[in-house]
């Protein structure tokens, strides 16, 4: 591959005589939304009798996807800077355990939550420092921490689950419903709004996109790109810790298997949503839709009675198709 600069040159030279002004509608920018609607319509039509469209089932999809969505929000920032975080699933597991152990030891709700989130922040800090200070590619750094953290999660309780009896904790972090609304939906909506504002409406978000768009240009323009990268890894660790609390609250326990393989679903949701794996282009709403779509497909296939192997094949194919048709992820 040629350098980025010559790439940009080539792309630019094509239209060098005219400034393109017309903003024609390009459906490929909205592929994930169309695909999502398509999936919903398909399952609604074919699985109507099996109760796919029932409120219960739809809320269930929300509950099942909440953790992926929340980690996906933070991952959107990481990928927008052109980096990646593979350690999120392991962090969720470790955080569920540290929170559960703290609660078990009697440090109370606040203590448990603080330790759970702190665990995530700490791993995020390690990731961020290794990427920025030692200039190790984030793929390798987080591949390393993914394994290390997963090992830690198994080791601290010798793979034993830690039950959580604090009913407030369990209610707030996962199991509760406010009226008909699951608390996981509340968390998802709140975090989505915050993340969207953060990415679109704050200098932090703008500089995140700038860092991923062209790091040296961003530095020339006064963006502290290393600090931005450190912050996105901190954010990713924090949200993974939060997802760990939600797993714990939903299952009334901490367990080392929580979040296993989540990193792939999270990254798939982000890319499916339209965030560019090369950085510079990111969308929070797209990520949530991407996550919901994966969750809906999962749910629909289960109701259809397909076994796990068939589900995996179909899910994989749908993801490849959606990304192939989408534009942002493959352009540049």
């Amino acid at each position: 591959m040629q350098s980025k600069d010559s790439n940009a040159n080539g792309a630019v030279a094509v239209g060098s005589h005219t400034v393109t002004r017309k903003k024609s509608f390009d459906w490929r920018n909205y592929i994930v939304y169309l695909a999502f609607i398509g999936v919903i319509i398909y399952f609604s039509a074919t699985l109507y009798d099996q109760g796919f469209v029932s409120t219960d089932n739809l809320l269930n999809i929300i509950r099942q996807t909440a953790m992926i969505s929340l980690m996906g929000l933070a991952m959107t920032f990481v990928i927008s800077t052109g980096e990646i975080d593979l350690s999120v699933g392991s962090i969720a597991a470790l955080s569920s355990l540290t929170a559960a152990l703290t609660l078990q030891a009697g440090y109370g709700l606040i203590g448990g939550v603080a330790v759970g989130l702190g665990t995530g922040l700490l791993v995020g800090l390690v990731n961020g420092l290794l990427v920025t200070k030692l200039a190790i590619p984030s793929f390798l750094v987080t591949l390393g921490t993914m394994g290390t953290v997963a090992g830690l999660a198994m080791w601290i309780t010798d793979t034993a689950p830690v039950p959580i009896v604090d009913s407030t904790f369990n209610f707030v972090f996962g199991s509760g419903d406010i009226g008909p609304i699951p608390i996981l939906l509340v968390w998802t909506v709140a975090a989505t709004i915050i993340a969207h504002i953060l990415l679109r409406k704050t200098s932090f978000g703008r500089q995140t996109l700038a860092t991923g768009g062209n790091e040296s240009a961003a530095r020339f323009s006064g963006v502290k790109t290393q600090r931005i990268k450190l912050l996105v890894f901190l954010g990713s660790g924090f949200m993974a810790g939060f997802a760990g609390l939600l797993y714990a609250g939903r299952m009334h326990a901490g367990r080392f298997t929580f979040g296993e393989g989540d990193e792939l679903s999270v990254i798939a949701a982000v890319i499916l949503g339209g965030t560019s794996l090369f950085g510079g282009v990111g969308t929070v709403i797209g990520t949530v839709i991407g996550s919901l779509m994966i969750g809906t497909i999962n749910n629909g296939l289960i109701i259809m009675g397909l076994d796990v192997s068939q589900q995996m094949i179909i899910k994989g194919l749908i993801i490849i198709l959606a990304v192939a048709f989408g534009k942002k992820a493959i352009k540049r």
Partner: protein
Amino acid sequence: MEQSMLSMRNISKAFNGITVLDSVDFSVKKGEVHALMGGNGAGKSTLMKILTGVYTADQGEIYIDDQLVEIKNTDDARKNYISMIFQEFSLIPTLTVAQNIFLTREDKTSIGLLNDKECIAKTRKLLQDLEVDIDPNELVGNLGVGYWQMTEIAKALSQETKILVMDEPTASLTKKETEILFSFINQLKSKGYAIIYISHRMDEILEICDRITILRDGKHVATEDCKQIDLDMVIQHIVGSGMDKAFEWVERDYDKNTAPVLEVKNLSLGSKVQDVSFNLFPGEIVGIAGLMGSGRTETVSAIFGTGPKDSGDIIVKGEKKTIKNASDAVKAGLALIPEDRRVQGLVLEHSVKENIMLPILSKMQKGLLIDDKKANKVANDFVKKLNIKTDDIYKTTNLLSGGNQQKIVLAKWLANDPSVLMLDEPTIGVDIGAKTEIVDVIRELADSGKAILVISSELPELLALSDRVLVMHEGRIVKELQRREINTEEELQHAIQGF
């Protein structure tokens, strides 16, 4: 006497003990466009990098409006209202024009969120003032090169600026875009900006600049009023008197009556390469001269298949070849050593032998294993043939001199025994000793019957090597000169400048 807005006095700078700038004086007045000229390595860009805080001077002072200022980093330069227009390095293609211009300096709403509306309005006003027709909401990645440049300028001017440095701003612009840029520069001038204009193009400088300063070998040689100079004077100042002895031309003997080994017919690529045709004969060295952006690199990469082309035929040894990529080209017997391949072309931690073997490993195999005897023989042959100075073939390449490293790169590309060798700026960034060695190697290769095409911005080198020189200007071959017809570097300069 008129007051200078910027005055750099007595500036000296050395890198690793090699003097790059030697007590240089340079000043620019308010509302003036001041050209800075000089050959490669004259010190222009070092001087500007000192002004913009990329480097710090070893010695000397910088005054702005007669105030002594200290510029230690790029922030200091900004604080002193100095802006530099980069070719395309400070824009982010995935952000819009307005987002780029105000990056890190965005307006905020009362609760601290980005106020994009305000930024867009300000950008619109700024662009209107500059009479540039760009939509603030357009992604920079969708803009043409010319508008990319304008956006850079608008970005520089969106913060308070007095001194604007432009480095070869027209290198990638079309004629029309250049005209737009010039009317723009005239506007800035009338608004009282001081503009430093670095360029190799005399016609442009005479059109747009008020004064001209010429550097040579890190020294200030002249500052003149543009109305009182002509091309000859400028070229003389740039070239100086003594030509390097190492670069003396040696008339070479080769059979001029054979069939050409490479024929290029009507090669075209948009406005960058227009209807380029030439022949290359075995044993001949042909130089391509031209300014930056004249289409030299595009031409060779189109021939080699690594760059695009719209039309044109490539005929090798009388046979028309379809060359779509580098491996087609290699099969056809062509080799191209691009500018950026010289350093990256080596695995520095590996030995001479390992580096040479890399592209031809498959030929060295005996069954599944590498035939060490054969490999050693081939490596030793190359070391001998190219006169690579190394203790043995097992020495790691980072212990060798730059020139010898360069020869190993050559060896790698020669391993497939191409009949045509194309070199883009073969000596850029190597020291003078290594340069002469490389020049010698290229001559020897030609003597052994290979046809060689050399692109170089260093005219002494081009004159030392070439049997024939093709001059490119705006994508066309405008002149073909036999080396015998060129008496001095000045004559070639004239041809290149298009006068």
